[in-house]
């Protein structure tokens, strides 16, 4: 069947728009099904009725009167005439009315065809969207940090007052331009451009991208850039919020603090080096049996120095990462394993646990003592494996120092140096409020387990510092 074969009445009944036909006196001659459904009325209540009287005079709308009585008589058609009205049957609605004069052969008065489309939801969404953007603009202008809103193509839609003031430009100079084109192209950085291009398509925010440069009228400045996607409700268009945080002063304070830390660290480490050097000098001229004692003393100083590195990278209140600390101790001990001990390797297995700096010194010395004991006694042939392990067991931290060496001999008469080493272990465990877990005597190797309270971590949790 061709389109021309379809009766006009079928089309009228099928279209979703409400249609009514008025005669020259504005009486309704007919309406389609969509009209009756939209306005919850029937053909009996409608046909022959003056449009203004329809449905308890709910169509007696000043705007409609203007259309029908003032506009239509002078024009053949009107499109997109918007009528907003409270209809008793369907509530407040916005209707888009298209009107057209229709003449039949021999009929000079003609009829008026009104096509009515309910655009209430679309208009409400548009209003909501407008309100949202007005709100966005207000927020944009209220935020003290300079910021811009970017379109999909990276051009600026709007810039905050703070942005315009800080960079000494006008809104007109920013609108429609790319960020990379602003000023003296300070923001034209390939890495930034690359990140910005991912914000919208991949919903990948930018956090803390730092740019340091000379800005006209501002001098040397450091900015922290943050960007994220913003969406409008009811609208598929996405935009990007790009915030410029001026961190120049904070950066300078950090640099001053780092410089001071480096200076202090340099002096402390040099003083420790002098002490280690003095011990090395003494060891050179002392009898062989005493050399081991000096060597152990140097290792203890080394353990405290490594801890200092970790603490110096932190600020007050932060904690020390136990796993990183173990690795540093292992690294230093391994570096000492030369000559006939070079076949000993030290492995670290550590969960990411933390201790506060005050308790880290006895903890580090404890690990150093146990590992040194293993190096000294477990491997008479200079080959073997030592494991330093720390993990959380219930509400405790378990430190395990294990070796695959010859195991402990039950001689009952330990040397003075060994006795002193175990005394130190006992002191450090007591200081940390822990206990030594008794272990079975094994055929090969030695395993020392020490349980320490989890309260080694200061209450409230603190920022972790890794090596």
């Amino acid at each position: 069947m061709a389109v021309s074969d379809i009766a006009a009445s079928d089309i009228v009944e099928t279209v979703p728009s409400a249609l009514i036909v008025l005669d020259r006196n504005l009486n309704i001659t007919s309406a389609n099904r969509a009209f009756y459904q939209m306005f919850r009325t029937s053909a009996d209540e409608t046909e022959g009725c003056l449009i203004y009287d329809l449905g308890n005079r709910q169509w007696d709308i000043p705007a409609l009167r203007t259309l029908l009585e003032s506009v239509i008589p002078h024009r053949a058609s009107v499109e997109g005439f918007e009528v907003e009205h409270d209809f008793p049957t369907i509530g407040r609605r916005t209707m888009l009315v298209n009107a057209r004069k229709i003449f039949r052969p021999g009929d000079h008065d003609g009829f008026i065809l009104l096509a009515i489309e309910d655009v209430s939801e679309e208009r409400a969404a548009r209003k909501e969207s407008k309100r949202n953007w007005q709100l966005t603009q207000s927020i944009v202008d209220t935020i003290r940090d300079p910021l811009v809103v970017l379109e999909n193509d990276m051009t600026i839609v709007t810039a905050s007052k703070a942005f315009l003031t800080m960079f000494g430009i006008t809104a007109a100079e920013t609108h429609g331009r790319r960020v990379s084109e602003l000023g003296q192209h300070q923001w034209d950085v390939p890495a930034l451009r690359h990140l910005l291009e991912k914000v919208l398509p991949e919903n990948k925010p930018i956090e803390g991208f730092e740019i340091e440069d000379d800005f006209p009228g501002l001098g040397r400045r450091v900015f922290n850039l943050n960007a994220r996607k913003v969406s409008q409700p009811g609208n598929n268009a996405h935009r990007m919020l790009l915030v410029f945080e001026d961190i120049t002063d904070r950066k300078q304070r950090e640099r001053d603090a780092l410089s001071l830390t480096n200076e202090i660290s340099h002096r402390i480490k040099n003083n420790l080096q002098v002490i280690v050097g003095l011990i090395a000098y003494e060891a050179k001229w002392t009898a062989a049996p005493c050399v081991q004692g000096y060597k152990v003393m140097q290792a203890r100083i080394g353990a405290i120095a490594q801890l200092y590195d970790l603490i110096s990278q932190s600020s007050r209140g932060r904690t020390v990462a136990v796993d990183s600390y173990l690795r540093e101790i292992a690294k230093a001990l391994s570096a000492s394993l030369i000559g006939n001990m070079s076949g000993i390797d030290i492995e670290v297995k550590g969960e990411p646990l933390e201790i506060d700096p005050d308790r880290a010194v006895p903890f580090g010395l404890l690990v150093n003592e146990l590992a040194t004991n293993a190096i000294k006694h477990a491997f008479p042939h200079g080959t073997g494996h030592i494991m330093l392990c720390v993990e959380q067991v219930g509400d405790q931290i378990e430190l395990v120092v294990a070796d695959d060496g010859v195991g402990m001999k039950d001689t009952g008469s330990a040397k003075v140096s060994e006795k002193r080493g175990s005394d130190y272990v006992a002191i450090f465990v007591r200081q940390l409020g822990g206990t030594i877990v008794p272990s079975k005597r094994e055929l090969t190797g030695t395993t020392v387990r020490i349980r320490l309270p989890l309260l080694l971590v200061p209450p409230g949790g603190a920022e972790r510092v890794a090596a």
Partner: protein
Amino acid sequence: MAVILIVEDEVFIRETAEMMIQDSGHHTLSASDVNEALSFLRSSQHIDALFTDIYLKTLFLGGCDLARQAIKLRPKLRVLYTTGNYVNDKMKALFVEGTQCLPKPYTQYQLQGCLAALLAA
């Protein structure tokens, strides 16, 4: 037996480093700053390795600059850094490729071990 150029601005530390290196059978040359070290490096003196502190007097990264100049003058020179400062990635990026850093305080055993590995490489 190798010749090691030690660059350290603290007299006592430099002299104990000399002792530690000499005890392992090597010869030492000593400098207290960059200019003194460059005089040795520009001379015809045979030098196998440079052992330099990074923070030299007022130069925070003086040892790093020295090592770069040293490698330009003597491309086959081995380099071992030492420092009392925390070695961060920024600092590591300034190191000559294939070099090591021995943190302070170092013992005679650690220094001797590092030099042995460096010279054997």
